[in-house]
């Protein structure tokens, strides 16, 4: 299990390539990565992700451990960036490896649902016409109720 919080870009290809590599007991790997979307009007200049150093690592570790406890997983990776990002940049990724695909898929969705609402990150968008904090979505809070 690995939990990484970093400012610099991450190497998605290398992370996916090395994750669960050589394991012959795991048949299924699911990955998710999030990308900064340009906003609908295309005016997004950049995004700043603020986080709570210390608590962030604890929260991500707790979420990853909970996934390992609930599903039969061979490995879990959670990686999240903070700082300045632009449209098209990769913000974060999770990966799960399991014997069977159902565990890998469910655990990855669980990780994402918890990351969205329980990990201390806050996004602020900067556009030509000003800056604004991204509001939490009630959908994201609701998504937790299924677990």
């Amino acid at each position: 299990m690995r939990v990484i919080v970093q400012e610099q870009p991450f190497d998605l290809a290398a992370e996916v390539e090395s994750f669960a590599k050589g394991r012959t007991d795991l048949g299924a790997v699911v990955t998710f990565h999030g990308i900064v979307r340009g906003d609908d009007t295309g005016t997004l200049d950049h995004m700043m992700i603020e986080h709570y150093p210390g608590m962030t690592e604890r929260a991500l570790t707790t979420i990853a451990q909970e996934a390992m406890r609930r599903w039969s997983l061979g490995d879990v990776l959670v990686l999240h960036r903070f700082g300045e990002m632009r449209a098209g940049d990769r913000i974060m990724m999770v990966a799960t490896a399991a014997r069977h695909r159902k565990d890998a898929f469910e655990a990855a969705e669980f990780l994402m649902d918890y990351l969205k609402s329980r990990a201390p990150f806050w996004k602020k968008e900067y556009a030509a016409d000003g800056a604004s904090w991204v509001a939490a979505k009630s959908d994201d809070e609701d998504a937790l109720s299924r677990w």
Partner: protein
Amino acid sequence: MIYDVLYFAWVRERIGLPKEKVTSDATTVAGLVADLCAREERYAVAFSDISALRVALDQELSTFEAPLDGVREIAFFPPMTGG
């Protein structure tokens, strides 16, 4: 008691600083918030709608009713938007 109090995102912006030492006799988070609001307008503005805020005690999510016994670090912030 003296606490490390942290603010994030727009709470930090409204209060105007990321972190401060706060001395308070309050026994709960809500009591500490009342102390802060009584100090200065910017706190009253930041904490005007508690339902829009979250609190963490020693880096664990908690509630405004929670007691402060043994707590060292208190953080206030809006709902998180990770992922």
